[in-house]
């Protein structure tokens, strides 16, 4: 990598670092793990910097690397969610609104990793259905169905969705 490429890489990473950390945190809900995921993704982006910078949408390409890092890291033994004898306390019913931050975090944790990723990409990053499908390497139909199921799991209706 030339010095110019190197500088370009550092600028690219610096501009997006906080956003990547936040999206990683939303996926894993732990800041230490989030920083681990971002570190791994940054290393991958560095390795594939030519592909990233030549991509039609480098932003989406980098987000794809981060999201897939999260999905594949979850398969590793030391990252796996562990079975517990007792389930953690659950709210009796989900709140009608999502005003409460802790409740929202708890609800998000109840989703599967892909559903969580779909909702984060769609509603936090504002990626289109097509872009989300490209990032997750799934079909548009899968994104739509995962979005619907994710929202249903959160017991949110379209009224809440739109504000």
């Amino acid at each position, binding site marked *: 990598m030339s*010095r110019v490429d*190197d500088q370009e*890489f*550092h600028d690219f*990473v*610096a501009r997006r*670092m*906080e956003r990547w*950390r*936040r999206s990683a*945190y*939303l996926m894993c809900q732990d*800041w*230490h793990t989030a*920083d681990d995921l*971002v*570190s*791994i993704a*940054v*290393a*991958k982006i*560095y*390795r*594939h910097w030519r*592909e990233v910078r030549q991509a039609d949408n480098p932003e989406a390409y980098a987000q*794809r*690397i981060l999201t*897939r*890092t999260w999905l*594949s890291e979850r398969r*590793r033994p030391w990252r796996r969610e562990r079975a517990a004898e007792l389930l953690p306390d659950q709210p009796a019913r989900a709140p009608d609104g*999502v005003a409460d*931050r802790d409740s*929202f*975090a708890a609800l*998000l944790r109840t989703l599967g990793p892909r559903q969580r990723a779909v*909702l*984060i990409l769609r*509603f*936090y990053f*504002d990626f289109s259905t097509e872009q989300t499908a490209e990032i997750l*390497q799934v079909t548009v139909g899968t994104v739509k169905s995962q979005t619907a199921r994710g*929202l249903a799991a*959160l017991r*949110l209706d379209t009224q*809440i*969705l739109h*504000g």
Partner: protein
Amino acid sequence: MTQQHFEELTADPPPSTVDVPGIVRREKRRRTFVRIATPAAAVLAVASAIAVFAPGGAPAPVPSAVAEPSSAGTAAVASAPGFRLVANNKAAAAASAATLRSALDDAVHKVAPGATWLKQGLTKEATPDGQPPRIFGDDLRRPTDQMFSGTTGISLDGKRGTLSLNIISINPCTGGKLAKCPASHASPAKRRETMTKGLFACQPAPEKCAATTGVDGRRQRVQTSLSLNGFVSQETTIELADGRALMLTVDNQFIAPDATDVTDDVAQSTTPLSPAQVTAAATAIGDQILP
């Protein structure tokens, strides 16, 4: 649900522990020397292939036959009488490369009889399944400046990865196509010193590394490199009798030829060949290369 809900959830992030300069340093170290010739090798593929298969091409003037190694097992491979790696012209380069390729094939199968070669990567020049890597050589005047390089996939006991063989000149500024001259304006002596240190001295932790000197005074380094995303590389570098270095590397990265996601390329947590196997194969090849 709005973007604001997500923003609120991440409202108070702790200070970042992502060490971008450290990541870049590790990745650069990983790349250094191991992949020194890989990008140029792709460019050379067509030229060298023409040299290998050209009708009426001059027979190889230098290499002699590679003898059959005599013992099986992973600890050691018997040395063969030897051959010279010379690439004064394209025909000699092709012949030397072919001999080196054959020696690599023999050595790897001697230390790991079940190993199979795999087509790897997305380039048109990728070596087909079942064939050892094509080796490409520089055609420079001074034999000790001539470099050789080859890379392909390897599989053993269900583990996949990439094997790279590089013959590296201690003079990094040979002007050859496989050479990589640093941007600094250091003196030739300083450049040689830097290159020698980079090849035979151990890097700081967390790399596992042992730098030794053989009974014949030649240096050797056996190193395990790790990277954040599960990448592992076993690398053995041996000083050759003619002053050049032979570096044999096996890692756990594998990009299938039909891969759609080149970023998810760590095949499993360990490399197909162990450090002892990599070292045994490297030693077996290195011992055959005459000054």
